[in-house]
């Protein structure tokens, strides 16, 4: 998949744990793990909005397009 999820980097920058983020954005840790591992097929705008709000960042900070 040419879309890379840089959620781990943002979490490290904000010094936040996955579990905390999952609680704030109200999704399960299992789903957050799917998102982090790049196995997710799609991301809802509402989830993206909640992540950006919690990590105080832009969607581009989390998602990156890399040519295959």
């Amino acid at each position: 998949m040419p879309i890379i999820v840089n959620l781990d980097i943002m979490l490290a920058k904000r010094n936040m744990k996955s579990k905390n983020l999952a609680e704030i954005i109200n999704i399960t840790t299992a789903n957050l793990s799917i998102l982090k591992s790049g196995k997710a097929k799609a991301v809802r705008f509402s989830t993206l909005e909640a992540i950006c709000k919690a990590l105080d960042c832009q969607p581009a900070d989390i998602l990156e397009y890399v040519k295959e």
Partner: protein
Amino acid sequence: MKRNLILNSAVTFCNIINLIIILMFLGWTFLFVHLQIDKDYYKNKEVNLNNLGFTYSLVSKWKVNNKSLDKDVYEINKIKTTSIYILYLQYSISLILIFLSFKEFQKVLSSVKRIQTFEINNEISFRRIGQYTFVYFLLTSFRYISFELGGLKAITISLTPIIILLLAFIMAEIFKEGSLLKQENDLTI
């Protein structure tokens, strides 16, 4: 509630059919054994290959002595032992295949009851039903019975198994698409 009532009725119907198939198999086995023990009981009982339903049959008969009457040649008690064994195997396997098909259908029904409709297992079940029906179609498409004073062979093309086979494969494709959609939905965060 209504949905469960219909599903429960379908499951009960499948159970009844499976029971009938088991009884048919036992009856068929009894006939197979009895025919070899007491052949005289089947004297004057002629073999009839006329089928009903959406079937096209091509039957050819032959006799050792052309002057002898059909009812004297094609009697059940005059079937050769090898033919009895072939017929027994043919019908037993057919019954087993019908039984297995209903079992697979019951699996699908129970998964729908558990609200796990679009699972990959249902696609596999329908594909299996299609494969079983194909083997059933092949098994029932030919008959070869050898008698002491003659014989008959028939090629039968039955439309019912072909229709069931096609429907089963179409349903398998529908469930495959459904499971892909479900997977995509599950992986949308």
